């Protein structure tokens, strides 16, 4: 009882604090200097139509590197943690319905292509490496659902992940050597604004990010999938 009332007090107090914050808020109607810069100078400097992309991949490229690293780490750790778990016998899973299997055959390539499209066009349209990567990974989910007992090799995913990760860094380093700094996109010509081959290295980087994210998310999904059936059904 005491514990519960303490909890209520804590939550109420936090709510009160947040309410203070809320009541101090008033919306703005101008971009601030920084965002204004991105929306004006940034366009010519980076050359990406999608401002968010220009911020994500170039101006805040280091964040993105970190972000990719986080996924990498997560995949790595989950691999480490669950490695011990998926030893031993696995119960054979039920086959998926014919319906799902057939649909998958059709959908898989389409989804995959959509994913690739999204990350290649990340500098032009909404979307980008992460979104594309996530869609790529969703193909894996579909595969796992439909082909329940197929073996999917980690190896391919690992190599994809490593190669794209290293490429990302190499591109970043090239930025230091050839252009203005780490992850500068101007190592490639900016090209014509609004076209696919524009915005310097952004499409390249975003492609690698897409591949990497896809591979990482896939690894995570795979790892979770592999522990399936190693345990009693109550989970």
């Amino acid at each position, binding site marked *: 009882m005491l514990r519960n009332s303490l909890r209520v007090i804590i939550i109420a107090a936090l709510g009160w604090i947040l309410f203070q914050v809320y009541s101090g808020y008033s919306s703005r109607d101008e971009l601030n200097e920084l965002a204004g810069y991105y929306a004006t100078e940034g366009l010519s400097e980076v050359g990406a139509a999608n401002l968010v992309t220009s911020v994500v991949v170039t101006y805040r490229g280091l964040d993105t590197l970190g972000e990719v690293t986080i996924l990498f780490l997560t995949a790595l750790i989950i691999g480490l943690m669950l490695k011990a778990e998926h030893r031993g016998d696995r119960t054979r899973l039920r086959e998926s319905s014919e319906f799902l299997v057939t649909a998958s055959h059709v959908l898989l390539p389409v989804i995959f292509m959509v994913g690739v499209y999204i990350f290649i066009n990340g500098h032009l349209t909404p979307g980008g490496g992460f979104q594309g990567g996530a869609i790529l990974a969703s193909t894996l989910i579909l595969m796992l659902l439909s082909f329940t007992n197929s073996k999917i090799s980690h190896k391919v995913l690992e190599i994809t992940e490593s190669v794209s990760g290293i490429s990302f860094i190499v591109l970043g380093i090239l930025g230091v050597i050839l252009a203005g700094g780490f992850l500068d996109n101007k190592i490639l010509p900016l090209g014509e604004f609004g076209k696919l081959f524009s915005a310097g290295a952004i499409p390249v980087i975003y492609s690698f990010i897409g591949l990497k994210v896809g591979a990482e998310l896939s690894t*995570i999904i795979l790892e979770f999938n592999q522990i399936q059936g190693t345990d009693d059904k109550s989970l």
Partner: protein
Amino acid sequence: MTNLFSIEYITIFTSFALLVLGLWGIISQKNIFKIIISFSIVNTSIHLLLVSLAYIRNRTAPIIDSAVDRVNAAEKVVDPVPHALVLTAIVIGIGITALMLSYAFTMYKQHKTLDINQYKSLKW
């Protein structure tokens, strides 16, 4: 005060409400999975908050296309920076949530329980 019913106020309020809800879940739910879900709620609420903070009324997404021309983009688009941040934050959230889940799984494998009160081998 009419402002209060404008969308950014509503979303911010909602995000705070979600935040409080999530925090309540975190400290009151006994099931570890529910705690993790509460954590996700908190996470999401903050993403919502960030996006809301980027919002400027009557403006559109920060992408130069037919709706926004290059020249006066600065008057047409909402703030792109929080969007970029949210993108990153979401991924981070995924990472942490995934990690929590796998921790929860291995813990469950050992103790066959998901009650957080049962995990007290370390104390004092």
